[in-house]
């Protein structure tokens, strides 16, 4: 398996999804070798891999500076390279993608495996190379397309080309939702029969830890948790916040996460005159994520284009009511939540105010959501992948 990020050093849903899927596969007796790009001697060394003992997993580290959710601009700011200012994707990221794929070629020659399964565009070239060398079937797993990451604005041609090449070279494509399947058909010219939808899941750990939050004596809390990028719709969150505050003054809007729109969003909050009600919590990890969900009276995911969206499931796991955008894959698999078009600020605000005002609504959403998400597990997605592998290998 060719991966991109892996917990605990991951910044988003992709790492969580890979982790869950690999665990599900290994529970069913599939041996997974995961190749991850790892950057040495750099301030970006958060992708150091720790193999988890209870997984049937071996990891192979590649010396590379790839890191999760790298857009060429964030990549540049991270590595401090600015040499082509009119292209948001600098040359170095593609060099790294290339280097990673070369490294994978070596590994592909020496490792023993039946199927190549790779995750998102940065690993696609590596996947294609591995297939060429080994003649083993290639599965590309699409967690997000360039159209999601850029919300359709300023799609990078090189990234798009790699995605397209990967999809066409693959023997099968896994899409994380029907929403994503639709994008692949529409934008990448792939026949629908080649695409299998495997919805993500969430692993349920009983989490009965409760703590009091003093701030809740005076305020209701509405949470945004995700990367602060155009894809996640943080600006829509702010517009809704302003509308809500006109009616319900004692509400705090917490934005947890980081991303290339962070400065812009901080300024936007000031411009809208709601800076005193919008808190920026920064990027949260581990237990703090659950604490944030627990503290919140409501979690909002206003994504403009969300291939899946694991965070609402995490919020529901913590008994927190959720409002999710209809432009998301997760809205295909959950019912006990409120769904809204990301651009419909009025309706989003109506829902936020209603959840804050009506305690019974909060309680029913929280409780029913908890039980709904409790049924999710990675066995089913893993089972679907195994069937797909078997099909590709001609095993009945």
């Amino acid at each position, binding site marked *: 398996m060719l991966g991109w990020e892996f917990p605990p050093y991951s910044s988003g849903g992709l790492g969580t999804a890979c982790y869950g899927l690999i665990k599900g596969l290994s529970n069913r007796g599939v041996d997974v070798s995961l190749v991850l790009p790892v950057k040495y001697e750099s301030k970006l060394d958060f992708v150091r891999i720790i193999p988890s003992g209870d997984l049937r997993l071996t990891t192979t580290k590649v010396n590379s500076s790839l890191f999760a959710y790298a857009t060429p601009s964030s990549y540049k700011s991270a590595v401090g390279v600015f040499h082509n200012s009119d292209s948001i994707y600098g040359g170095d990221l593609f060099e790294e993608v290339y280097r990673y794929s070369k490294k994978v070629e070596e590994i592909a020659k020496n490792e023993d495996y039946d199927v190549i399964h790779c995750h998102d565009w940065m690993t696609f070239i590596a996947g294609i190379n591995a297939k060429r060398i080994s003649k083993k079937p290639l599965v590309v797993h699409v967690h997000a397309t360039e159209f999601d990451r850029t919300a359709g604005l300023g799609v990078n041609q090189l990234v798009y080309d790699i995605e397209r090449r990967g999809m066409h070279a693959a023997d099968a494509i896994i899409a994380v939702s029907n929403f994503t399947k639709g994008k692949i058909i529409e934008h990448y010219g792939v026949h629908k029969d080649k695409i299998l939808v495997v919805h993500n899941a969430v692993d349920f750990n009983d989490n009965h830890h409760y703590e009091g939050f003093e701030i809740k004596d005076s305020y209701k809390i509405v949470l945004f948790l995700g990367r602060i990028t155009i894809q996640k719709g943080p600006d829509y969150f702010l517009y809704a916040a302003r509308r809500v505050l006109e*009616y319900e003054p004692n509400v705090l809007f917490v934005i947890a996460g980081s991303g290339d729109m962070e400065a812009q969003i901080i300024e936007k909050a000031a411009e809208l005159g709601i800076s005193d009600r919008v808190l920026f919590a920064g990027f949260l990890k581990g237990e703090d994520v659950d604490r944030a969900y627990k503290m919140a009276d409501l979690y909002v995911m206003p994504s403009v284009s969300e291939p899946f969206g694991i965070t609402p499931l995490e919020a529901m796991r913590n008994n927190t009511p959720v409002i999710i955008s209809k432009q998301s894959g997760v809205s295909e698999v959950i*019912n*006990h*939540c*409120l*769904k809204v078009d990301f651009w419909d600020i*009025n*309706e989003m*605000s*109506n*829902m936020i*105010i*209603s959840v804050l*005002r*009506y305690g*019974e*609504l909060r*309680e*029913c*959403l929280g409780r*029913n959501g908890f039980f*709904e998400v409790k049924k999710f597990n990675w066995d089913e997605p893993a089972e679907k992948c195994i069937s797909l592998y078997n099909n590709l290998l001609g095993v009945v």
Partner: protein
Amino acid sequence: MVSVCFYFQVHQPYRLRNYSVFDIGHNSNYFDDARNKEILLKVAKKCYIPTNKIILQLINKTGGRFKVSYSITGIALEQFEQFCPDVIDSFRALVDSGNVELLSETYHHSLAFLYSRKEFKKQVDMHNKKIRELFGYKPKVFRNTELIYNNELARFIEGMGYNAVLAEGADHVLGWRSPNFVYKPINGKIRLLLKNYRLSDDIAFRFSDRNWSEWPLTAPKFASWINSINGSVVNLFMDYETFGEHQWDDKGIFDFLLHLPNEILNNKDNDFVTPSEIVRRYKPVGELDVPNTISWADIERDISAWLGNKMQHSAVSAIYALENEIINSNNKELIEDWRKLQISDHFYYMCTKWFNDGDVHKYFNPYESPYKAFISFMNALNDLRFRLEKEKKENFIYVAN
């Protein structure tokens, strides 16, 4: 030999529009008028008009041996009057045939009995008035919203002068006893007619179900089941919308209905009866004690479809908590909107019991989710409260002057 009693419920609610918190205090039009009209006209065309025609035809063809009974809610009647008066005309023709009995219920198809006897009685009176105006008719048999029933209801209805009341033949109430006999409520004098839910639901729910072992259901087959019954009456109670709306014409429901009466009457010992005829003809075989409320809904046959979660409880309680103030306001519009918000469908739409499975509740739910149904309802209720406060203030100023 057995007497077959058909009873059909006719109802169309006023569905709420997506009523937002931002409408509170600005716009007091709670209902989705366009959609309500559209659905009403659709169901009239698919069900009420063609089915009424068939029923009348059957009454004539059998020389008056075929009989049925209906209850039509007040709000369904007023919507027919407004948008499709020909439906009223066709019901009139049926009533005039003398083979159709009309039953009494709450005008607003409400849960009022569970919350306010005073309001309940008022709504029953309103319904009686409407039936008298439109059909020149006085019902003698009562059926409560969704067959919601308990000992208390029987006693209260008896006190209002009715001869009989309809209820679900729920297993947990009947135990070893059969629904195919006439009973009376505990310590009561009136008759209790119990729905044979297996045979009723074979038509109402399973008719088009290809996974059902008895599919396809034909008139001769159903008649043979009727013939094999050991008892005096078979009460087939169902939504009238079963014909043409829940079960579609192209699945053969009208054909089934057209042939059923003759198939049943082929056995000379069978006949069709109305509830009042049952009262006259059959003595009760025993008393039924129903301390806990039952209904005809879902497999539970209880009231959890309307009062199963906290949203539903809080919404229903909140609407009835306004009773005294609303009535005392003497403001006709306020009272009317308050009553329209009592329509039980509003609370049914908030049911989360079966939301996962997406079955019958989902089919009947005009909202995307029970949560959205709750939001629109509570916002509308808060606007009603706002209007009430405003009215009180204005009245106060008027008095002070």
